[in-house]
């Protein structure tokens, strides 16, 4: 796809896919959520999705505002429950494409249980989880993903809790498609979101996304150049990570500590809830 990618300009994407009356967005300067929207629209364009037959579902939080900007059916639900609502949409009408926007607090914190069970059922839903390490909309409290030692308004002396790795969790639960990318490079996320949409089954694309206003200001990541450099330095491609773990020197292995693996964690096939339900109905219907 890298060669075939037909890059539409932001203005073209905006005219084709967005609700003009919703602009300007609520996002702060330097926020990465706009990039995630941009990448998602590129992917949608690439896949050729019919927006009349696509439903965007979200919970509560900054990233959960995204469905409001897209000119399609949207369900902006309660905090943490996007996947439960999305499961209802998909189970009741499997012909619709369902895309979920959620955050780290929404999807992995309050909604963590729904994440486990939606993956277990293997609902054919694409989830774009925007991880900014913090509860941004409420002004910057610690999240399940806040890095070890990270400063937030509720961890003023540094975070003592171990952060959660959502992708490793999704992989362990058997999600057919799992990927994590930082927003600093557009091509891989666009490709992964498109693959996630095409994948029959649950797809999770975690986007590491800066929040200069809430996370950045307490952790020396407020200026754009700083942020983007940090995301490049703190992320390691899965292949490289595994190579270092296997063959790296003790110093190289030590340098992995606190960093984040990026890349495609899983790409496999698994029967979906909808397909199995349809088979069951075919078997027992009167």
């Amino acid at each position: 796809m890298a060669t075939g990618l037909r890059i539409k300009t932001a203005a073209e994407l905006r005219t084709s896919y967005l609700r003009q009356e919703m602009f300007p967005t609520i996002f702060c300067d330097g926020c990465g959520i706009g990039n995630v929207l941009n990448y998602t629209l590129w992917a949608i364009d690439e896949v050729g999705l019919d927006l009349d037959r696509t439903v965007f579902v979200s919970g509560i939080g900054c990233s959960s505002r995204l469905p409001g900007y897209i000119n399609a059916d949207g369900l902006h639900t309660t905090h943490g429950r996007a996947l439960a609502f999305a499961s209802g949409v998909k189970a009741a009408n499997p012909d619709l494409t369902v895309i979920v926007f959620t955050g780290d607090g929404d999807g992995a914190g309050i909604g963590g249980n729904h994440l486990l069970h939606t993956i277990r059922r293997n609902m054919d839903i694409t989830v774009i989880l925007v991880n900014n390490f913090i509860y941004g909309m409420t002004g910057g409290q610690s999240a399940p993903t806040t890095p070890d030692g990270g400063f937030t308004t509720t961890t003023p002396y540094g975070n003592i809790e171990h952060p959660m790795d959502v992708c490793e969790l999704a992989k362990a639960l058997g999600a057919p498609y799992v990927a994590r990318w930082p927003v600093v490079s557009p091509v891989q996320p666009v490709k992964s979101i498109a693959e996630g949409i095409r994948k029959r089954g649950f797809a999770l694309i975690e986007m590491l996304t800066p929040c200069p206003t809430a996370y950045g200001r307490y952790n020396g990541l407020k200026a754009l150049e700083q942020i983007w450099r940090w995301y490049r330095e703190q992320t390691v491609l899965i292949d490289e990570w595994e190579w270092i773990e296997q063959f790296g020197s003790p110093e190289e292995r030590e340098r992995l500590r606190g960093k984040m693996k990026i890349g495609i964690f899983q790409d496999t096939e698994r029967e979906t809830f909808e397909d199995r339900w349809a088979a069951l109905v075919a078997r027992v219907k009167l």
Partner: protein
Amino acid sequence: MSTHRELIRRALGPRVQFVQGDDACAYGAVLAGCTFFAGYPITPATEVAERMAEILPRIGGCYIQMEDEIASMGALIGASWTGAKVMTSTSGPGFSLMQENLGYAIMTETPCVVVNVQRSGPSTGQPTMGAYGDMMQARWGTHGDHEIIMLCPASVQESLELTIVAFNLSERLRTPVLVFIDGELGHMRERLVIPEDHEFELWERPRATDRAGYRPFAPGPDLVPPFAPFGSGFRTFVTGLTHNEEGLPRASSATIHDQLVRRLAAKITNHLDLITRYEEFYADDCEIAIVTYGITARTCRDVVEEARRRGIKAGLLRLISIWPFPEHVVARWAERVRAMLVPEMNLGQIVHPIREAVAGRCPVVLHSRIGGELHTPAELLEALEALQWQPA
């Protein structure tokens, strides 16, 4: 090729059955056209889910067991937005978990039916025993200003019939409707006659027809906005935030919030003629009235007959729709009677709106029973006799 109605008939089986209240709620839902159920097991409501799990795939519907009651309510709302008629069932603890999403359904005008087979609380309480402990939670459990519709059957037959009514009201007014029974009625077996299709009406939610200029939350003349299901090309944005008629967030506008929330309440209170249901015995010459609801009303019917034999001019007002509270009906009785006895299987919940409606016109005496047992006729008779001899 069978029609959907024929499939439903075959899935439900014989016309006359000996079944539980829980079963009857499931049957009523299927007859009403319910094709989607999301739920979570909980005593004493589990049999509703079990019946739906058996029936729905046989008629081409969908049953999904969710990870908790929060998810059940969420899935229900998602499914309703595809245009399906939807239901869930639960009991006290699960109903507590559903409150936030119940409010979301009210705010987003999403039709759905919730059956609550009540048990005793607080907390886990008495899982296998009947009680009416959620009567006020139903009214005020979810946060914010709102109206809710609740129906309270007193028999297995009525559980089926009122579940159909619940779907009709929910679709017609685009709002959640609650069917409240209890563990006693839910697990009690009685003769059930499954009505023929011509014996009941089915109402559908108003549908949007024109895409051009469609505003998803612009109300029709009866304050209910026409509905366009997801996937129909109307491109509807649905949010629990305060929204304008286009459905777009306007959370900081006092005017829009005021208009929206007052309309959501008024679309229900303006339709009391569709909602309000009650039953009266010996209303004409009643001096001492029993006012009650649910399974307790069945004991009270016998109590009133026995009291009459003993020379007490007793009567019974059985409330069938509890919310919105039928204030005018209770007020009318208060004009005529000397006293009201209110037996409840809780420490006093519906006695409060009753007292508000009576407004001091006659004494209102609560007779509570908790612990999972029904009121005995003897104790209620004694309470009536005490009121009979009380000086005016």
